[in-house]
């Protein structure tokens, strides 16, 4: 659905989007990486299960909540990509307890 304007000079980093390895420009966010990966819905609504995808791309709508590096409910449009970042679809509401203590630092 989304295609980038060609910019051969720009630096890239390696990320995975729902397990799929890809390289994206350093100025992308996790949400734009997910859009470039054409994964469709990036989460489902905890209330009615409907699919959702990034909408405003500026931190307002909260439709872009994803699991990033194992941490759920992050606003993917506000998270710049980093080399090795894991970006995953979020299904419904996150669990209360998740991950290990090391991931607490968000």
């Amino acid at each position, binding site marked *: 659905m989304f295609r980038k304007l060609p910019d051969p000079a720009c630096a890239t980093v390696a990320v995975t989007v729902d397990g799929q390895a890809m390289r994206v420009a350093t100025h992308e966010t996790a949400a734009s990486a997910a859009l470039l990966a054409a994964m469709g819905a990036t989460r489902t609504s*905890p*209330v009615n299960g409907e699919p959702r995808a990034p909408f405003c791309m500026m931190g307002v709508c909260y439709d872009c909540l994803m699991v990033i590096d194992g941490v759920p*409910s992050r606003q993917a449009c506000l998270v710049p990509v980093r080399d090795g970042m894991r970006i995953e679809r979020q299904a419904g509401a*996150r*669990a*209360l*307890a*998740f991950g290990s203590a090391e991931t*607490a630092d968000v």
Partner: protein
Amino acid sequence: MAEASFDFVVVGGGVVGSSIGLGLARRGARVAILDQGDTALRSSRVNFGLVWLQSKGDGMPEYGRWTRRSADLWTEFAAYLQDLSGIDPEHEQKGGIAFCLGEAEFEHRRNTIQRMHNQVEPWVYETRMIDRKAVEALYPGVRFGPEMVGASFGPHDGVTNPLRLLQSLHGALKRVGIAYRPDAPAQAIQSDGGGFVIDTPAGPFRAGKVVLAAGHGTTGLAATLGLEAPIVPERGQLIITERVAPILPIPASGVRQTRDGTIMIGTTHEAAPDLTTRATTANAVHIAERIVRLIPDMARVKMVRTWLGLRVLSPDGFPVYMESETHPGAYVAICHSGNTLAAVHANDLAEAFLAHRLPDTLAPFHPRRFHVSQAA
């Protein structure tokens, strides 16, 4: 403008006025509810949503009985509202918890419960203390902090969704033919022989009887009709989190999860003589610190909002109902816990206002209890 004429005019369209108005109309009265627009201070839109018995009535057993009566009526009331309005007030009655952090809190809670049981028939509360293991069995998915030593459990406690409740009430008002007028706040009320004339920006309203249930707006109007509505406003702030998979099947007095997954955490108690409603970061921190002691995993759950509301508290915290002696047919109804009491307000209280005299069962709620000289 021609005067609109009704059997009852209820002043105030929050949960208290709406419940009473619905109860009156359901019994055949022609009712108008006068309200203010959306800028009004309205506790009914900012509260925690509990339908709560276990802590109610220490020092006034009648309040315990009155609250138990409401808890018992609530399931039928919720079904009636849903039926009429098509909006589910999301009432549940699976019991409720008050967590204790540390032995001192547990002992204090045990003593309070014991004292309350001693003041009233045993059937009223049926609240009991349970230990940490029993609490854990009620919340199988939760890892509690080490300080959680136990809780009190009240089998008659429950919740409603306060926004849905208000929406549902207002939908029901329309269906039973009540004139709801958010454009017509009462400015002044005069009695004229047979009844009352209520002046509003939308013209005068005439009524045989008038009920003042305008929350923080009640006190001034009451004084002009020989009624008393003493209110000691109190600020209460709460925190709302992001949605979390269902984990808290039973509501607790400071934490509950809505059907949609949001966790509500509360609340503060601060005197608010100036009626200001600014939420503070310090309060949010205070609330957050306690919830993290109770459930450490909450430290990683995102807070999405914090807000603050003003409690409509009488000086002793119990409801105030009275009929005016100088202006018979004028009543006042103010209370904290308007959700909890909604069912009994729509039943017993509406019936009392329809009868010629308030029944003796309501006498304990008369504000004469605040007159020190008479209390001796």
